[in-house]
């Protein structure tokens, strides 16, 4: 029993970034096609990371690198908790911890750009965190359990009861996947405005770690989408994976068709969406179902 657990954990730790990296490569190809270009090969994100690992390591100060590794550690922990079917609340809190360590890294590197990036990261967290918690609360109301393994073994998929919560979650997914219009804190396209925000001072191996952390995060974000669709019926898992792909594709389209917004709009719109959909949806669920 223990051996199976360990094997599963190792598989999750190894396979998650591989799938996440492939997804990132897919993302870059689709983005290029949307812009009428051919785009890089599918394995491009892996080439980037392998290159970065071998590059020189510039040290700005003694502490700022630590935070990247701490962030990666907590993100991996989140991935393990979520994909093992563990407690969703715990996963969300550990995920938040990972994001906070990442913002600390931005503050610790002391560059004005990275400090702006870190401040924006915290603002983003303020924008999306309520919706993540409400998602967990909604899923709890439907399944009467915070364990993901219970949530995905219901007879009826959660999306039936929580369509509005799902819409709200997809809205804040843009923050989590660091896509435009909400890629305020760092983005591949934030060249001239904030010189890549938090990651400004990171080079070489730490930049590669940031990239890998992001791969984990993408998969974690899509795992939330997955929970909305999976049921006790095995077929539903195929639909859940399809739903994840559709949502990801949708996010790529949004990424390519919008520009970065100011943080005021990002915060306000996220809270308005969160407030409206969560209140309406949770009221309806509590009124009719229980």
């Amino acid at each position, binding site marked *: 029993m223990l051996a199976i657990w360990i094997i599963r954990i190792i598989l999750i730790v190894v396979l998650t970034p591989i799938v996440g990296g492939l997804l990132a490569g897919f993302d870059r190809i689709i983005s290029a096609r949307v812009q009428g270009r051919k785009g890089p090969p599918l394995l491009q994100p892996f080439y980037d990371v392998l290159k970065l690992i071998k*590059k020189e390591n510039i040290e700005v100060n003694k502490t700022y690198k630590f935070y990247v590794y701490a962030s990666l550690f907590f993100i991996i922990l989140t991935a393990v908790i979520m994909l093992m079917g563990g407690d969703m609340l715990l996963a969300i809190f550990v995920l938040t911890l990972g994001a906070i360590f990442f913002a600390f890294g931005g503050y610790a590197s002391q560059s004005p750009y990275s400090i702006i990036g870190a401040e924006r990261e915290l603002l983003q967290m303020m924008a999306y965190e309520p919706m993540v918690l409400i998602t967990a609360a909604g899923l709890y109301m439907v399944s009467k359990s915070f364990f993901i393994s219970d949530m995905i073994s219901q007879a009826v998929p959660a999306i039936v009861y929580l369509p509005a919560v799902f819409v709200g979650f997809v809205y804040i997914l843009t923050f989590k996947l660091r896509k435009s219009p909400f890629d305020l804190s760092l983005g591949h396209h934030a060249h001239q405005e904030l010189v890549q925000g938090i990651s400004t001072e990171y080079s070489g191996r730490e930049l590669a770690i940031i990239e890998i952390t992001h791969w984990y995060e993408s998969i974690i974000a899509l795992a939330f989408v997955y929970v909305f669709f999976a049921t006790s019926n095995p077929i539903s898992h195929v639909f859940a994976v399809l739903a994840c792909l559709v949502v990801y594709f949708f996010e790529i389209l949004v990424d390519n068709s919008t520009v970065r917004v100011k943080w005021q709009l990002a915060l306000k719109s996220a809270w308005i969406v969160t407030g409206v959909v969560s209140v309406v949806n949770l009221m309806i669920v509590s009124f009719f179902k229980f």
Partner: protein
Amino acid sequence: MNYNTKSPWILHYDGSSCNGCDIEVLACLTPLYDVERFGVINTGNPRHADILLITGGVNDQNIPVVKQIYEQMAEPKVVVAVGICATSGGIFADCYNMVGGVENVLPVDVYVPGCAARPQAIIDGVVKALAVLDEKQNAMKK
């Protein structure tokens, strides 16, 4: 195997160019030439860049800027001088404030000819730079 050649990230700096070469550099990113096919990303951050593309010559005012940018880049790194101005000062060579080509300040690895340098020539220059990058990476390992 070195992956530098598969993912060259470029930092583009405009010295005292007339802007002619700059728009050609940016033209490389457009759908017609699409250098992202080769993994090229145009970053704005010296810490992330492998290749420093400089257009235009150096003048008294931007010498410290160019040097600082170069110093902030992580090894291995290469410098590509794009256009005649970056090579020798070009038509601005006689101006009172010009120092001349980039080579007066930084070690230049590849020169790209032309006024303005054509996108094909720039891509060719970057490909040549990749060979140099590879050599430098191998030298670093030893």
